[in-house]
């Protein structure tokens, strides 16, 4: 028998380890700020790539940066009506080639610099030099004139009814901060991780991968209510389960990533409020109209009839309102509806396919975006129904940039090696005008491979529709323009280049004591209006 004195010697070591563990657990108790009245903690959906409003993704711009930087005007619920922000009023010339803005008096940037017409001109130059972010919107402006300190005039290249709605993307940075830190890249390195705006909050610090911490901008022109938050910590927590745990513990007040399965339990929790709001973002199943057999409208209509929305809705736990049509109804004026001309009807689909000469065993290629469970789910539902019709759907998985490249290359070269028939696509209401849906997705000029390309992936080219949209874009009266957009909407719907799947529902999960959370149909998902929020006592 061997002795175990080996382990006698271990006992003190074990004791030391145990004490160390207890010490570590007890020490390092952090300054408790969660649940602190004037501090808001948010579990962010995604880390912003950059805090520079002239060089970041437009999603980040609209969601988070809109609390730090401001544009001249923003949008309101009604199409064609705008909210004064840094401009208090504006007029357009008769030929719609010049817009004159009267600027708000007494506005200062967070570094104390005055906001004036010269600041607007400096910002214009910057965007035109960097050519990122809001460039597509800003380049519509041919020249910026400083009329006087409080008045600025934009001269545009050509008249466009959509112009004013694009101005919500053009945000102002402090010209003094820009001048002091321009470097060799127009200040991109500096503005990437620091802020100097007119908004309600400014950056205190950004620990990459951890937290973006904002504090009140004391120079903000609206002033503050007693119940405004002093500090907002936007924490980067990539896991839905972690965000949920932290929310339930009160360590975060708003969770931006929540799995749908967790919702029933969260709804039952009295300390948590779940707010579901439908907004004007739409998900489509795009159909490549330039590739056989989808170049035959009968085939496209057959596919539309094969879309089983009830089955999909059940998979989404009931949270999947059917999309309206090519453009959301709410953008096409009050009282407008589009009747569903393609109810789920497999017999009808079968008939149409037979008419078009599509044989059983035909295979379609579906591009499926990696990491997006929603898009995968809907493509799977689509595939299952088509299976019953004898049409096979092959999946090709890729990241979004890869999908974009493939569809663009195919559009330009028609290389059979890059063939694709179907892809799920989400269009956000980034601009509050039907132009952003109908023109950008279905005009001949916006086919992806063209220099003027935007989001016409499907190669849709209908001259009659083009003319309607061109005319609508030149019609400054919102009512008259609406009539033209509606007509275009109907015609596109009849051609079925894209199956409208669902309208997006923003599901906000907050602690019950957070007040002031409001969502608008024109918002992007997860947009934050930090100024409006407060905590109930």
């Amino acid at each position, binding site marked *: 028998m061997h002795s175990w004195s080996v382990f006698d010697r271990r006992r003190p070591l074990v004791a030391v380890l145990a004490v160390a563990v207890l010490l570590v657990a007890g020490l390092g108790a952090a300054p408790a700020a969660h649940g602190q009245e004037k501090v808001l903690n948010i579990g962010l959906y995604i880390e912003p790539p950059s805090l520079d409003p002239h060089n*970041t993704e437009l999603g980040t711009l609209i969601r988070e940066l809109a609390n730090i930087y401001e544009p001249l005007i923003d949008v309101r619920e009604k199409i064609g009506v705008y909210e004064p922000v840094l401009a208090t009023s504006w007029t357009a010339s008769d030929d719609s080639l010049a817009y004159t803005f009267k600027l708000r008096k007494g506005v200062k940037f967070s570094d104390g610099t005055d906001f004036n017409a010269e600041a607007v001109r400096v910002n214009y130059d910057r965007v035109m030099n960097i050519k990122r972010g809001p460039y597509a919107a800003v380049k519509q402006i041919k020249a910026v004139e400083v009329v006087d300190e409080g008045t600025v005039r934009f001269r545009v290249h050509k008249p466009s009814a959509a112009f004013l709605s694009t101005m919500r993307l053009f945000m102002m940075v402090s010209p003094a901060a820009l001048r002091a830190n321009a470097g060799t890249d127009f200040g991109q*390195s500096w503005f990437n991780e620091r802020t100097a705006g007119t908004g309600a909050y400014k950056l205190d610090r950004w*620990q990459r991968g951890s937290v973006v911490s904002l504090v009140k901008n004391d120079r903000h022109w609206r002033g503050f209510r007693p119940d405004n938050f002093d500090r907002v910590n936007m924490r980067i927590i990539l*896991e839905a389960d972690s965000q949920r745990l932290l929310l339930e513990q009160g360590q975060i007040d708003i969770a931006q990533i929540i799995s749908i399965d967790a919702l029933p339990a969260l709804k039952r929790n009295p300390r948590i409020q779940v707010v579901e709001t439908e907004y004007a973002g739409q998900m489509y199943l795009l159909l490549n109209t330039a590739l056989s057999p989808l170049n035959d409208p009968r085939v496209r209509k057959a596919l539309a009839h094969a879309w089983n929305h009830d089955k999909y809705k059940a998979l989404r736990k009931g949270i999947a309102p059917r999309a309206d049509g090519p453009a959301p109804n709410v953008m096409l004026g009050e009282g407008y509806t589009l009747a569903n001309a393609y109810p789920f009807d497999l017999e009808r689909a079968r008939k149409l396919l037979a008419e078009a000469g599509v044989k059983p065993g035909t295979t379609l290629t579906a591009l499926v975006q990696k990491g997006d469970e929603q898009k995968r789910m809907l493509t799977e539902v689509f595939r299952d129904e088509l299976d019953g019709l004898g049409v096979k759907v092959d999946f090709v998985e890729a*990241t979004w940039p890869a999908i974009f490249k493939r569809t663009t290359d195919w559009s330009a070269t028609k290389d059979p090696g890059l063939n694709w028939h179907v892809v799920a696509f989400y269009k956000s209401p980034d601009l509050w005008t039907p132009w952003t849906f109908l023109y950008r997705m279905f005009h001949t000029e916006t086919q992806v491979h063209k220099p003027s390309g935007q989001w016409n992936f499907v190669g849709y080219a209908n001259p009659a529709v083009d003319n309607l949209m061109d005319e609508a874009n030149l019609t400054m009266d919102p009512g008259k323009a609406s009539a033209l957009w509606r007509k275009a909407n109907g015609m596109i719907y009849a051609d079925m280049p894209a199956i409208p799947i669902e309208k997006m529902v923003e599901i906000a999960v907050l602690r019950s004591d957070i007040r002031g959370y409001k969502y608008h149909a024109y918002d992007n998902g997860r947009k934050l209006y930090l100024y409006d929020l407060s905590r109930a006592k």
Partner: protein
Amino acid sequence: MLLYVARRLAALAFVMLGMSLLMFVVAHALPGDPARVAAGGVEATTEMVRIAREQLGLDRPLAVQYLLYLGRTARGDLGRSVVTRRRIADDLLEFFPATLELTAAAVAFAGLLGVPLGILSAVRRGRLSDHVSRLAFLFGISMPVFWLGLVAILVFYAVLGLLPAGGRIDYLLTPPPHVTGFYTADSLLAGDGQRLASALRHLVLPALVLSTVSLAFIARMTRSCLLEVLGEDYVRTARAKGLREALVIYKHALRNAAVPILVTIGLQLGTLMGGAVLTETIFTWPGIGTYAVSAVENQDYPALMGFAVTFSFLYALLNVVVDVLAYRLNPRVSV
């Protein structure tokens, strides 16, 4: 010995050059478009993507792009990340040490727990404790780190409230002044007790979870090596001489079994560095794993190459260190 080390370090340079070329080729073979990511993603128009492509030099021939990259790297400029828009050198300086800290702690746990457990298992071979240990090893190797991490957070954070749910340090504290990039070491150097304690508290759970991967491996390796050595004649002689069992195991058996055990521990560090990404995601640990995955997803070529070159350097360096240690431990090991 010195000559040996010098030769190995010289070879490192070639390894890094080879890695950079390999990664360049692989990165450009990936489907996708970094110009689109740089231009702003989905919202960018075709024209903006074209402009970004020209700005990044992606429209030039591949050979030219590679040579330009080498030239800039020689001047110390690793380029700018398309995703973070920051200098890649800054990204690497921040994210590599984070992962090193995590994996070093994980391997330390794994070694400190694994070696004694392996010894116990070897010495009590065939007994109940051996069977239980081996079952535990199997559990450790088989259980996905992802799941273990979530369970650990549930138990230690949600239920017991003992440890934090993620991050490297309490998010209300600014990190300690950057010297090594290890929050623990830097806090110690700065004499900051609060930050040290917070960094340690945040390190414990992810390191323990990540260590389960290596723990079982190290324990099993220890058990096998020791068993092999315990069967040797000189061990039987030592016991026959009446030496205490502890002396037999530590002075004679383990010393000879040490080299392969040590090599295993050292290489685990390299393996874990590459595979820590799941743990990093669960525990929101902003390390090189998450950074590299993001670089792949976004075709961030400069970041990918910076990552690959640095990683291969560290891995090769680690191998050199392990070899030198092995030689010191057992001079009969030829180098």
